[in-house]
């Protein structure tokens, strides 16, 4: 430390030295950092096992300094189920995008939640297929232009964008569901709190915990990072509101 300087910010030791491959402005980097800060703060590096999806975060294990398994596209929930069931005292999470969790892996997602598998979903919903170059996702908004909906998503033929947090919150054995974002510092802090709460609920064995991040994709939305934040506020949040959809502890209190 240089004389006269004070350390006020550093990356958590649980992130590796490798540079993120994510595009500028993308929330993946922010969420990765929050997760590893939580792992460091809670001292659970030796107990945490993560599952990577297929999508932009397919290489998450390059950056997160924890044991990880790379799943086939859509199967992260089944892989996480397998890990958690044989290692019930470990903290297990699956980190998945919208194509992974809500299209090709919908069956695995819903059934893991219905069984109340005691792991945490981190669901990054940016409404588009990022890694394959901007195709329509199950969560692409009505009228949104992508490379496979060049005239805008036609909900008459493609159906409505799936509201996963809302769907997941209907399962009895799910403990906690919240949709968060990182578009402002305040929202980013809320996102971190939500992830930490999900991990704590998992450690208490309360059931499935599911954090949906209303995320962005400046590159494929063809917007600057700043414009992408405005798109989130103008277009995404009205359809995908940020809030807690289920909190088993609050439900119990109300009873």
């Amino acid at each position, binding site marked *: 430390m240089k004389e006269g300087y004070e350390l006020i910010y550093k990356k958590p030791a649980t992130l590796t030295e490798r540079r993120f491959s994510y595009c500028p402005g993308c929330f993946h980097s922010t969420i990765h950092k929050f997760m590893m800060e939580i792992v460091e703060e809670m001292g659970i590096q030796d107990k945490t096992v993560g599952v990577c999806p297929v999508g932009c975060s397919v*290489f998450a294990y390059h950056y997160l300094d924890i044991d990880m398994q790379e799943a086939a596209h859509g*199967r992260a929930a089944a892989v996480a189920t397998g*890990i958690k069931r044989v290692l019930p005292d470990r903290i297990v999470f699956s980190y998945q995008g919208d194509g992974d969790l809500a299209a090709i892996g919908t069956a695995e997602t819903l059934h893991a939640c219905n069984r109340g598998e005691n792991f945490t979903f981190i669901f990054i919903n940016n409404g588009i297929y990022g890694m394959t170059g901007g195709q329509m996702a199950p969560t692409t908004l009505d009228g949104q232009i992508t490379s496979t909906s060049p005239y805008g998503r036609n909900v008459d033929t493609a159906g409505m964008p799936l509201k996963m947090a809302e769907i997941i919150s209907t399962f009895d054995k799910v403990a906690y569901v919240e949709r968060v974002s990182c578009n402002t510092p305040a929202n980013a802090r809320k996102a971190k709190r939500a992830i930490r709460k999900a991990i704590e609920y998992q450690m208490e064995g309360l059931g499935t915990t599911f954090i949906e991040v209303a995320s962005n994709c400046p590159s494929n939305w063809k917007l600057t990072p700043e414009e992408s934040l405005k798109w989130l506020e103008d277009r995404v949040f009205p359809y995908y509101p940020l809030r807690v959809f289920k909190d088993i502890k609050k439900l119990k209190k109300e009873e």
Partner: protein
Amino acid sequence: MAEVKLMKGNEALAEAAIRAGMQAYFGYPITPQSEVIEYLAVQEPKHDYVLIQAESELAAVNMLYGSGGAGARVMTTTSSPGFTLMQEGVSYMACAEIPCVLVNVVRGGPGLGTIQPSQGDYFQAVKGGGHGDYHVIVLGPNSVQEMVDHIFLAFELADKYLTPVMLLADGATGQMMEKVMMPQPIEYKPDKPWATTGKTADRERNILTSLYIQPEDMEQRNLKLQAKYKKILANEIRYEEYMTEDAEFIIVAFGLSSRIVKNVVLQGRKDGLKLGLFRPITLWPYPWDKIGKLAAEDRVKFFMSVEMNAGQMVEDVRLAVCGKKPVHFFGRMGGIVPTPEETYLAIKEKMG
């Protein structure tokens, strides 16, 4: 304690898995092997294995990936259409080097097919099945006893070579009851420092992946797998010979059809025909060299592969014989088990 029991093949293999230290089972009901998960469900309270009836074979095989990768001794069982769905996970596990045991109690296909016994999945089992350059070790049990013995062997081989190991059984072997010597349970102590159990301060993080985006890295991964397969080829070939030492006509058969052929060989010998049975026990690695040596013997006049399919293993017999002798085929399809009489007739026809 080891004990003699009268058991159905599917139930015997389930009991054997418990005794071999299985720690997790994931499956989806499908005829003719649903007795496995039913048996395990009944026995579950007495043991501490994990048992999940998954939402699909696709989910089951990926639960296998997760739990096998977390270091547990794991198994799934299914039948043909279910195994087709599992191919995704098998390819990933082969590449990520995750040990597991897979059982395919084969039924007639293609498509939804029938629920009767078949060997129509031979190609799928031994030639890869899923995408990419990989093999799994494939064992071909021909009795309820071997359903049991091969489960123990399969778990051992899976751990030894860090690979999926498969039993290619058939509907009849799964359904029939036979006397079986059930071995004593073993105490399984996993030693898997590569497993994803949580990164401790004394080691680097463990990553299980089949993704190597740089082609040079992917080729290195392939070379590693191929080196392992070479080792398996050198060390793990198993087969049984029955009256081949002086045989002029060698009938090659695996699994259930080998038992039919054994009867045919006995009948032929009674009639003065020098028949012999060659039974591959490992279907991959296949005993090509041994069959090749038999083909080089002057006394041997021809080979015939007898299968419950349209002629699949016969291609490996041809590879092994390599043009030295004629190679014939006889088979029935769609869930029909060939009778000894028609098999014998087919052999005699080729004798001319």
